[in-house]
């Protein structure tokens, strides 16, 4: 990372610590905001957060690695989380998974080489009566079928990048 980028990140973390307070209870909200913006919380970020809260960086690492949404390696612009729990499983999540992998050319747990899409599993997301369900960043999709996969991916592509035709980025819902 360039030094300037590091400095900017450190400044942002300091601002977040001012906003949420320097107490330990501010740890998760700060990490959530960094994660949301940068898609990852690297060693440097963890060190700065630890300094701000007056704790050891390994404490930050232990928390980040504990929570599925904080520790995930998915770094794509669009993080797609498909529910794998029982009701969605019974409603055909397997075929949706297969179509996702085919359309993106990656496996679950990977990110596309252009950094746009990541595929991840999620546990029950509370849409059991409308499965299979999945989250694209924070937006929920229900009754997903293998045929719908292409349209959902296109919707993401249309909303981001130099060729974007829609103003709103999906992850900013």
């Amino acid at each position, binding site marked *: 990372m360039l030094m300037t980028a590091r400095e900017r990140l450190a400044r942002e973390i300091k601002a977040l610590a001012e906003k949420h307070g320097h107490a330990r209870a501010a740890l998760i909200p700060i990490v*959530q905001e960094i994660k949301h913006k940068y898609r990852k919380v690297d060693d440097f970020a963890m060190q700065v957060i630890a300094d701000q*809260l007056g704790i050891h960086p390994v404490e930050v690492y*232990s928390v980040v690695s504990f929570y599925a949404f904080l520790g995930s390696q998915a770094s794509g612009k669009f993080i797609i989380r498909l529910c794998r*729990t029982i009701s969605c499983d019974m409603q055909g999540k397997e075929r949706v998974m297969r179509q996702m992998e085919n359309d993106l050319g990656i496996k679950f747990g990977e990110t596309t080489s252009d950094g746009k899409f990541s595929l991840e599993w999620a*546990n029950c997301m509370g849409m059991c*009566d409308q499965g299979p369900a999945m989250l694209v960043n924070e937006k929920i999709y229900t009754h997903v079928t293998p045929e719908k996969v292409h349209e959902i991916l296109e919707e993401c592509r249309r909303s981001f990048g130099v060729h974007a035709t829609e103003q709103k980025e999906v992850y900013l819902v």
Partner: protein
Amino acid sequence: MSPLPTFSSMAPEAGLDRALALSRPDIIEEVKQSGLKGRGGAGFPTGMKWNFAAAAQADEKFIICNADEGEPGTFKDRVILQDHADLVFEGMTIAGKAVNAQEGIVFLRGEYTYLRPQLEAALAKRRKKGLLGKDILGSGLDFDIRIFMGAGAYICGEETALIEALEGFRGEPRNRPPFPVNTGFLGRPSVVNNVETLACAACIMQRGAAWWKAMGTEKSTGFKVFSISGDCGKPGVYEFPMGITVAQLLQEVAGVGAKAVQVGGASGLCIPASQFSRAIAFEDIPTGGSIIVFGQHRDMLDVLHNFLEFFVDESCGQCTPCRLGNGKLLEGVELLKEGKCSMAYLQELCALGDTMQIASKCGLGQSSPSAFLSVVKNFREELMGRTYSQV
């Protein structure tokens, strides 16, 4: 049409108006009289919980709304927060008055981040109307509510793990006692109630304990919100009185002819067709509201495999019976699927399940073997001696 008739029929803020006019002990007495029990699944009497927290001496107390609904097959809290958020906030304010707390925190699971804007808007509206903040409706009560986002951990539905997360630690459950009502968030007395419990408390305040007690059974009073999914014609959220039998419930949701019903989510019990006359209530089959219907064509081992993968993934790893036990049970299910499990080993796995129920530190490990044990007990003929063709 709203799917929850009783919640929809409540007059806004009538319960809060009444509570503000009552004394603290009177509010708690009313909730105690109603017999309301925790709607998250554990079924602890809400009035007692409030009473403990009210009796605790501290400069600060907290009301925490547990919206970390993660049990497989549960989605009622999402619907309640979407359609009846004001009722939940009203219940929190009433609880705040009852135990003398100034701050309420909604612990919203990360998967429901999309609900946050509308909840923040509802809170802002309440502040504007004088229903939150300083001197609520001129009664002298100070109470405000903030939202804390979870970060994707099923275990944080356990109240002490939830408090650990609020404090900025790994969501690892604490030893109990001390209970959160004495030593909770930041060491202060804290009431942790489920979303539905708080909404029900607001209803009870409005219509009185007698109205509530007229529904349900003697030991499980009132109605319950159920999340129904799986192989049935009409999945969704339903409101039924406590004590409804599994058969009646299947009738309502067009699920007649089911092979089995999972009551209480992955950590609940698997009820075979022969026991469909049993009642869903704390004295018979306890539940947090999750009902998953399995049709005749479902393979119970596939179901178990899915549940155990879930628990292996979601175990916090703190205590050995849960961390290793769930992994061993999962391996056992894989052996059963391949038809390579001896009866002696199956019995050993069942003994392991019993040990986990006794020796695990929190509710996750204590209840994760339930599904395994009930499937082995009720569907044994389906499990043993499989051939490769059945895999």
